[in-house]
């Protein structure tokens, strides 16, 4: 089923989709982790509730509210969220207290907010949304599966508007674990490192990107998700072959490709083979120099495109690897995280 994006909300390390100058300039940094630049939430979240929210909940609610505002709706009919790690800060707060206080005198707030479905539940609660509500936690496919679930829901319940998001937050503990796991780089990175692709691991990132998706073609130009091809593969070379075969099978007239190149040397080999292979004469763009590497970063990438289309803008120049796209009609988004891959066939309709 084809899904149309009619609203977009992003809270990211590169700013927020509500800002007038969002993505206009590239950032400069020299760090091991890119953390969200959080918006002023007063327009979105009541102050009493904001005080109790940890970062994951704040950025999730903030992005979902921006998204609904951009779609011009107060509440969605259904909600589907992808998060690989869930609400890590609250998990660690409760865990830490449980251990240091030897299971004594604990309070419930952090535990309540530690569950993986906290963000989707809080959105429903604040918006009064009684509809279908799911949270997917499948590592590098968490957001992809939230979108596949949207296809399933809308094919059973057509003409509805579904809020779909990808969200993950970083903590000191998770950055450390992801460094040991080889996903994130132990040393600091600069935007040039993401471009060069010769580091061990990538700069850590986080963010929340939400969308309103529907099966009805809107009047205004919108990004249409034609297909999502998600697969896992341990071997980089085989992964590139699978992806190439898939793209060839689609017989597309590609205007631009959006690549999740992260700076990591091993992952870079995958993108490099596509860049010099099937995408060799196509305008190529990257996005992880903005958001860093995290499991649901494909949501951020989809957000960059739909944000640009909604605002009638081109993709940011600082994302272009070679020549910039003349038109933005057919765009492919390719993402790789650990052994998780996805290829999104997108069309501006």
């Amino acid at each position, binding site marked *: 089923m084809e899904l149309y994006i009619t609203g977009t909300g992003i809270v990211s390390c590169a700013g927020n989709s509500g800002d007038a100058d969002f993505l206009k300039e590239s950032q400069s940094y020299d760090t091991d982790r890119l953390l969200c630049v959080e918006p002023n939430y007063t327009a979105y979240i009541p102050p009493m509730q904001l005080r109790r929210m940890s970062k994951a909940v704040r950025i999730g609610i903030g992005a979902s509210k921006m998204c609904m505002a951009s779609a011009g709706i107060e509440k969605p009919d259904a909600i589907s969220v992808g998060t690989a790690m869930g609400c890590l800060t609250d998990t660690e707060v409760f865990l830490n207290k449980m*251990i240091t206080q030897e299971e004594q005198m604990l309070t419930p707030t952090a535990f309540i907010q530690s569950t993986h*479905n906290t963000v989707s*539940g809080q959105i*429903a609660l604040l918006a009064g949304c009684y509809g279908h509500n799911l949270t*997917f936690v499948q*590592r590098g496919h968490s957001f992809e599966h939230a979108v596949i679930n949207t296809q399933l829901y809308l094919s059973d319940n057509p003409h509805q508007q579904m809020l779909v998001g990808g969200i993950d937050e970083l903590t000191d503990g998770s950055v450390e674990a992801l460094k040991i796991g080889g996903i994130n780089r132990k040393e600091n990175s600069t935007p040039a490192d993401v471009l060069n692709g010769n580091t061990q691991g990538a700069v850590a990132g986080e963010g929340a990107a939400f969308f309103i998706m529907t099966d009805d073609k809107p009047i205004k130009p919108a990004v249409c998700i034609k297909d999502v091809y998600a697969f896992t593969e341990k071997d980089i070379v085989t992964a590139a072959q699978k992806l190439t075969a898939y793209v060839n099978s689609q017989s597309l007239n590609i205007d631009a490709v959006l690549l999740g190149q992260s700076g990591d040397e091993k992952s870079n080999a995958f993108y490099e083979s596509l860049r010099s292979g099937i995408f060799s004469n196509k305008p190529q763009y990257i996005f992880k120099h903005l958001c860093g590497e995290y499991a649901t970063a494909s949501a951020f990438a989809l957000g960059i495109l739909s944000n640009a289309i909604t605002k009638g803008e081109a993709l940011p120049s600082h994302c272009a690897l070679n020549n910039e796209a003349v038109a933005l009609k057919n765009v492919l988004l390719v993402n790789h995280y650990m052994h998780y891959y996805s290829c999104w066939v997108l069309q501006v309709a």
Partner: protein
Amino acid sequence: MKQVAYIVNTGIITAIGNDTAACLDALLHGRTGVSKAEYLKTHWSEEFPVAEVKASNKALATIAGVDAKWPRTAILSAIAVKEAWQPFAEKLRGLKVGFFSATTVGGMDLTENVYKAFKEDSSSVDFNSIKNHECGAITELVANHFGINDFVTTISTACSSSANSIMMAAQMIGNGMLDVAIAGGADSLSKFTLNGFNTLMILDKQACQPFDNNRRGLNLGEGAGYLLLMSEKAMQQCGATASCVVSGYANANDAYHQTASSPDGTGNKLAMGNALKVANLLPADINYINLHGTGTANNDSSEGKAIEVLFDGKVPASSSTKAYTGHTLGAAAGVEAVFSVLSIKEGIVYPNLRWETQMEDVSFKPVTELKTRLDIRHVLSNSFGFGGNCSSLVFSKCLVWNCI
């Protein structure tokens, strides 16, 4: 035309048994799994009884044929998946197979033992203890072990998690995206969840009494439960038979409170009502309701009231099986899906153990004695959780459904 998702086999492990036959035997003989924690090391072991699978990770890993260093949730998952999957593993060539699991704790049972040391000096800790912390890592370990890779996902919607994995699996078989699916969930006990539920003051210091007026709270449990679902095409290819189908499903949100149910069970009513609609059934068609019935004051009251309204006072035979298995959280709907299938296959309704006193705000009484030799055609199974997540499933007997 939607494909029917046939239930071809089941796999389960809980405190009352290591497989479907053992669990059925315990259900038939009224044996509870609630007792003192022996394997979960916690300050609260004398205070709060739990429904624990009485075996070490090592012993369980031997049953599953997996690495004993896996998180306990993954080991429990592998045991239940193995039971459902093994008879058909060699017969599914060329078919598209999915694995839909659910968990709320992931690898927390290992993480919580090394977290402090990891924070102080990460190099002092064996990374294997935390590398499978993520919920998705649990599913991935099990999927890889059984070689399932066409579609692998994990859902985490608190206590309703595995109802949603069964729902999505039925949908993907329904529209032809998959031919075969293993769907359900797994959760092990952990100090994290026990202490978390203790802060909410909803743990019972005695064995729980769901739907009793004097109920005091829930007992946490652990386990895994999965259904093996197949399309008609897949069943023909591997010569399988089915006794029932997933006929209805619905997911709704209560949108009332992060952890509490609304007093009149708004989300509960929506989930049950919509699941009946999907199954194209009327409330009067339901022969048995496997209640969410946790034993907390709040859940049983909201669920009971929602049922009374939806069934217009004519409530079918109902019982909670959590007095046997404890509340297995992310595994609960998978475990209770297996019990629902057994209810249809065996023609039985389980007693709501330890029930003594009629609830004041709900007029119906759960079944308190084992009922046998019944014609159970349609079972409604409820699972409601934190975050307002409410899901209901309907299982129907093949003879009354459009079966082969």
